């Protein structure tokens, strides 16, 4: 009797745990449709970024079917469908799900999961089956240095992330020479750091501090004490959201005033400001995209390349419908752009054969609301998309660099801790 109760309790618990995550996964795969899909994080540490990605892709699935009627193959329009499973932000789950998507669901055009680590984990699986793999959240350059032939990239590679702030500072304040690097020790941030270091040396900056902190660190005080002594002008660093937010918080707690701080990921999300209030003013971050970015049919015409997909206004409309009012950040936009890239490439290839589509992708150069899309034919790495630098100014996230994409001029030097504590806003006059 007692054994029966034990079983009953265990069964109930396991069922409850299985029902919750799966209730948020889509399962639909309709015949007669071109299925584009992949594992994505709807639970675990990347749930926030994964949710944005799903909203972005779903928005484009709806736009493509409503506006274009799907992809055009041999004169026939076939609707597109998005299929995804929750990878729980875990490598082992990602590989299992990717195998399932390819072998059971017969997906030939896969979208990579969020983050460099997860993207790298599933890459050998897609390579084994010879299906296409489009990275929208895996920026690390190392992914594209493995010799994989079916992987392409929609977002800018990690090595480009923190080069924008350095270019900007060189232009607006050549006297600021002392740069400090403080990155989380992970796949993505290591690649960002490598790119930023090379750029800093090229531009003639003096690297006065270069450290990393482990993923599990919950107190950055020791490394920040050392940073304080380095007397840097500029701090470039971060990893993902939580540690980036902690870095900003503890910089202020320890009274470290700098002329410019650019942190990965964290400042690009509204929750950064919500958590820190006016202490978030004038913090910068590199971004793949920002609301207000000036990529449009007119900009494409000026560049001499075709424009594909919705305008930013249309994207916003479809996205907000999917997210029920939550605004897109760059994670949502880059995932949407990856989906659009597949549609454009399948259309251009007039084929559903991944090998044919991959070949055609090598020749494509077009613009979406997210920016340019063009890959290096050999590695599949993105070479045309440009990063932007975002900054919190007067409670709004503005694009401050490059000048062509600016929604506001940079606020420089950043407000002091005392000014931010007093509630001063970074308003450009």
């Amino acid at each position, binding site marked *: 009797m007692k054994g029966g109760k034990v079983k009953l*309790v265990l069964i109930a618990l396991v069922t409850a*745990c299985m029902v919750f995550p799966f209730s948020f996964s889509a399962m639909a795969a309709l015949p007669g449709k071109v299925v584009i899909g992949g594992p994505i994080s709807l639970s675990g540490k990347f749930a926030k970024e994964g949710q944005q990605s799903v909203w972005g892709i779903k928005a484009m699935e709806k736009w493509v079917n409503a506006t274009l009627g799907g992809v055009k193959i041999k004169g026939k329009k076939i609707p597109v469908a998005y299929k995804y499973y929750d990878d729980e932000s875990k490598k082992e789950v990602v590989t299992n799900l990717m195998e399932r998507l390819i072998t059971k669901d017969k997906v030939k055009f896969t979208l990579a999961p969020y983050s460099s680590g997860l993207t790298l984990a599933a890459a050998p699986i897609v390579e084994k089956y010879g299906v296409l793999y489009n990275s929208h959240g895996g920026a690390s350059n190392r992914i594209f240095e493995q010799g994989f032939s079916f992987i392409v990239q929609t977002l800018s590679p990690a090595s480009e992330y923190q080069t924008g702030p350095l270019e900007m500072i060189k232009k607006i304040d050549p006297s600021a020479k002392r740069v400090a690097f403080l990155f989380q020790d992970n796949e993505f941030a290591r690649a960002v750091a490598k790119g930023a270091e090379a750029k800093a040396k090229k531009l003639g900056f003096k690297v006065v501090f270069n450290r990393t902190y482990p993923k599990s660190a919950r*107190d950055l005080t*020791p490394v920040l004490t050392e940073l304080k002594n380095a007397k840097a002008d500029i701090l470039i660093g971060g990893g993902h959201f939580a540690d980036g937010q902690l870095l900003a918080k503890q910089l202020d707690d320890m009274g470290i005033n700098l002329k410019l701080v650019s942190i990965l990921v964290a400042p690009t999300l509204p929750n950064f400001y919500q*958590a*820190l209030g006016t202490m978030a003013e004038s913090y910068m971050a590199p971004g793949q995209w920002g609301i207000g970015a000036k990529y449009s049919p007119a900009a494409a015409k000026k560049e001499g390349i075709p424009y594909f997909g919705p305008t930013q206004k249309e994207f916003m409309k479809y996205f907000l419908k999917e997210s029920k009012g939550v605004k897109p950040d760059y994670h949502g936009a880059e995932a949407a752009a990856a989906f659009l890239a597949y549609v454009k490439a399948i259309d251009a290839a007039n084929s559903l054969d991944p090998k044919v589509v991959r070949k055609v992708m090598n020749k494509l150069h077009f613009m979406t609301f997210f920016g340019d899309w063009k890959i290096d034919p050999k590695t599949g790495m993105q070479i045309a998309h440009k990063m932007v630098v975002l900054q919190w100014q007067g409670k709004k996230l503005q694009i401050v660099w490059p000048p062509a994409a600016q929604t506001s001029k940079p606020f420089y030097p950043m407000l002091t801790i005392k000014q931010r504590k007093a509630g001063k806003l970074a308003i450009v006059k």
Partner: protein
Amino acid sequence: MEFLRMFSGDLINGIILGAVYGLMTMGLSLIFGVLKVVNVGHGAFIMVGAFIAYWMFTLFGLPPLLSAILALIVGIALGFFFYYVVMKWLLEAPELSTLLATFAIGIFLAEVAKAVWGPDYRGYSWNVGSLNLGVTTIPMAKVYALLSSIVIAVALYLWFKKTRAGNALRGVVEDKEGARVCGINVEGYYALSFAIGIGLTVMSGVFITLFVPVGINPYMGEVYTIKAFVIAVLGGLASPWGAFFGGFIFGLVENGSYAILGLIPGVEPFSLTQCLAFAILLVLLLLKPEGLLGKK
């Protein structure tokens, strides 16, 4: 001179971090000590506490120190609930069953939190000034976290040693059958210790936000579960006081060793601090397998 300044600053910060680590682990050790249940879902309860602090502050402006009382009450209620609904039926089952059950409870709590509050990272700013100690500047919120952790640890110690209920609970830990013969309601004390253990854990979530007031999200507990296990083993798995001291040692090593390791050329000191903390754990376990304050 500069080195000494950095080193002493790191030590002070290590003590504060250690106090919060210690408090965070006491609940885990208490539950293991009495019920012999390893709570793998420990971190999820810390997450609940962190969310209580966040919501109370952002919705009602309630200072985290007051939220701690609410968190204790919510935690105790959750403890009783999960004890009577789940744990009670599994106490005589093989150890793997309780391990699986607490793991499932952890996932369940995280997924419910995500369904209700979403996957966003949240945070709040409780600005109550800072304390300049010359060698380092410490936000007062962290000082409050340190003082609160010590007060709670001492209060729990006194409750165990000086009260009738505490004595009865110690009796249950020493000899379950003997306690039953003496008329002690063993099952009742099982429920009470599980509830207090969970209550302490949820409350520690509030104090963790005094230390790290950002990055609050449904999955934040994972890293704390791992650290709590290490600290619990360091202190002696069944000893809440050992856990508290273990937390101090872990915090001191993690932060305090940074300045020393930074003197070694070509190494990343922060990566090595964690390595050193685990190395010390290994050495200690070799010398004293039962942990700092654990009994053979």
